[in-house]
């Protein structure tokens, strides 16, 4: 059982404190935009924001989020999230799309901290987000594109 803010709404989830947040979000809260890829903090498909910081929800537990603020891909909004989505759509980034919830949340977190990221900043922030379709080339370009949209 945990009570926390989920996408801006106070929520109580009736789940074992040892259950990974990933599965609680997906199967208790019904938010399936957060994906399962590895369960071991190796792929980033399950990335969510915990108090504004990107975390792997497969290695974050229900017991850890009491009183915290959790944002999933369904709830990511505001100018940075909008700029990121607009860039993703303009550059047609997704292929299978399975990793993209995680990529987008990682990009939103990066741009919120670093509005004009260098390639090295992008590498540092998104290297943990695997894309087996290798859309990396466009992810990088889309982050730069989102940065210029935010500047404009």
């Amino acid at each position, binding site marked *: 059982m945990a009570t926390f803010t989920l996408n801006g709404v106070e929520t109580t989830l009736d789940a*074992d404190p040892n*259950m*990974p947040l990933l*599965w*609680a979000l*997906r*199967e*208790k809260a*019904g*938010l*399936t*935009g*957060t*994906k*399962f*890829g*590895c*369960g*071991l903090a*190796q*792929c980033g*498909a399950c990335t969510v924001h915990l108090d504004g910081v990107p975390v792997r929800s497969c290695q974050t537990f229900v017991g850890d989020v009491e009183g915290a603020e959790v944002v*999933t*891909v*369904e709830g990511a909004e505001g100018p940075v999230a909008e700029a990121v*989505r607009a860039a*993703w*759509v*303009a550059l*047609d*980034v*997704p*292929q*299978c*799309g*399975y*990793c*993209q*919830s995680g990529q*987008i949340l990682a990009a939103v977190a990066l741009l919120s901290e670093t509005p004009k990221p260098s390639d090295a900043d*992008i*590498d540092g922030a*998104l*290297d943990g*987000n*695997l*894309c*087996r*379709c*290798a*859309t*990396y*080339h*466009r*992810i*990088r370009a889309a982050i730069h594109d989102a940065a210029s949209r935010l500047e404009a």
Partner: protein
Amino acid sequence: MLSNARPDLRFALKKLQSAPVSRRRFLIGATATATGLAVGFHSLPSGAAEGGTPAQSATPSPFASYIELSEEGVVTVLSSQFEMGQGSYHGLATLVVEELDCGWQAVSVVGASGNTQLYGNLMWGGVAQGTGGSTSIATSWTRYRTAAATMKAMLVAAAAEAWGVPADEIEAAEGRLVHTASGRAAGYGDFARPAAALPVPQEVTLKAPGAWSQIGNPEVKRYDRRAKTDGTQDFTLDVRLPGMLTAVMIHPPKFGATLKSFDASGAREMPGVVEVVEVSRGIAVVAEDTWSAIDASHAVTAEWDESAAEQRGSAEILAQYRELARQAPQALAREEGDALGTLAGAERVIEAEFEFPFLAHAALEPMNAVARMNEGGSLEVWGGHQIPDLYRFLASQIAEISPEQVRLHVLKTGGGFGRRAVGDGDVVVEAVEVAKALGWRAPVKVQWTRENDMRGGRYRPAYVHRLRAALGPDGKPLAWDNHIVGQSIVAGTPFAGLIRDGVDATSVEGASTLPYAIPNLRVGLTTTDVKVPVLWWRAVGSTHTAYATEVFIDELAEAAGADPVQYRLDLLADHPRHAAVLRLAAEKAGWGQALPEGRFHGVAVHESFASFVAQVAEVSMEGGQVRVHKVVCAVDCGIAVNPDTIKAQMEGGIGFGLGAILQEELTLTEGAVDQANYDSYRPLRLSQMPEVEVHIVESDASPTGVGEPGLPPIGPAVANAVAKASGRRIRVLPFEKGLNA
């Protein structure tokens, strides 16, 4: 995946239909026969003519076969082709939007299945529905354009009748019908019902290429891109049904081992656990939710009978392959002139041995499927069904019902790369078996963990290539001998008919089709018997043959003191499409011009799945590590239906292939897989991705595939650059191993 470049596949599948040898081999044929649709594919329209020439159309009504049109005007393309990220849904939608003139506003695509006559892959002779060999556009090119043009003609006819005006005065555009003279206008949806009731026109005229507004338009973006940025795109992982249970599998620790006994008493006590059952492929831990099933699976102990299991490590397997490679091949895939004689008498002989590891598909969505038995005895199965007809048949066998009682929901999948096209239907079979073991009392999702997925088998086979060449006085190759050693992908599967005269085409493709003019040439194959389950892995045979042949030809150029591009071009006089992409990539990359200090160019060209791709890689060595900065890619895939998707597939193929040659390797120790997750099996990461520049050759040839052909050249292009940078030819993959070998 299955190749349209292999004419024998049609033959193979047909043979299965008419002459079943064993039950397994009979599957495809039985599927078709059981659905009563084994014949008649060739009467499907294949000859609707291009621009201006009326074509004979034996099209079934397009309504509800290939396209649904709602009364609200929503266009739903019923796709015969599976979407795993490669953009096939978008490609088919593009063909439909082009000919239907419905605009993109109200277009969606869903997977269709259950009708081989409508959806059979024409590149496979139409005998089964399936996706593979980069054939989606090729099989759909005429079929879906004809369906859309037919639907448009029927809508126009319905409006003409209702308005009492001549059909040829009605314009159809952006989903609206307009008769300017009378001032009448309506949306397509308004005529969906009356149009569907009209007779199907016997002739339709497809647009001439000059009239295309969608095909070839680089501004057309994927119709599904928004759902893939806001979390609304569903996959099999996301299927939720009332009362659904989730099962996690425990598979044998070694390939070929079988279950002796298990103890699940602890697991059964755990919260959320419903049942622990034995099925043909292992043990299933069934729970109310996924986490409970995963958690409880660790509490099950099992004993396995390993007497028939593979016990060798991958190092032993590869050492044996090296020995075999030095002996005579079992079978010849190609023989011209006298390669052995020429080599024996030659003054200059160059030799090389290449070693390729097992590789995992490691798609980001781990394998999964959902099965539900309905009241009344019909079975529904949700999943990434890449070979629907086969899976429908397999599911019906387990459920002991007829294939007609099985309904498949073909969902988009989170990456495939060949993994979802399996002859034994692995996870699909598991889902149905588990649901059956529970007495059909609830819908069941079988969800593999990453560890299940990594260790579940079905890898790109390991191979060894031995190459020898004799150079003439002018430096050109006089003889070429290539011996390939490795497992057959198709042996013992419904596709075994692909083996001809002891040669599995998927083992040698790309090597047996070497384009270079060499008078004495031999390509041999030795097929090995190893119990590691193998499968097509994006670009199949070309994943290793392109590497071995293109690194070796580069080495010959070096030995001849020739420029690697010119050396190839001199041997490609009879292969203009190879030569054209090679020239284009070289020109765009500035081949031969000075590069920044420490940077080197390498090149490769390869044909796979009837598309031609050349790449120039710009590489440096940093602290003993290979760094790829930029790749310039030229592709000829015939008519470019979706230029942006083609570019994306080239980029993706390059990234996928680069990860494999740099660092991916699936190894076994005493028969057990060493890797379990992405910490030890490591696909490419963002920081390793080079800049990619793609150039598409303008062409009016029929469109061919792009899902796979971007991959084969990247390995050899990088290796050839590394040879310049370091003086070393990497012959053992991945590079991480080869650089230290």
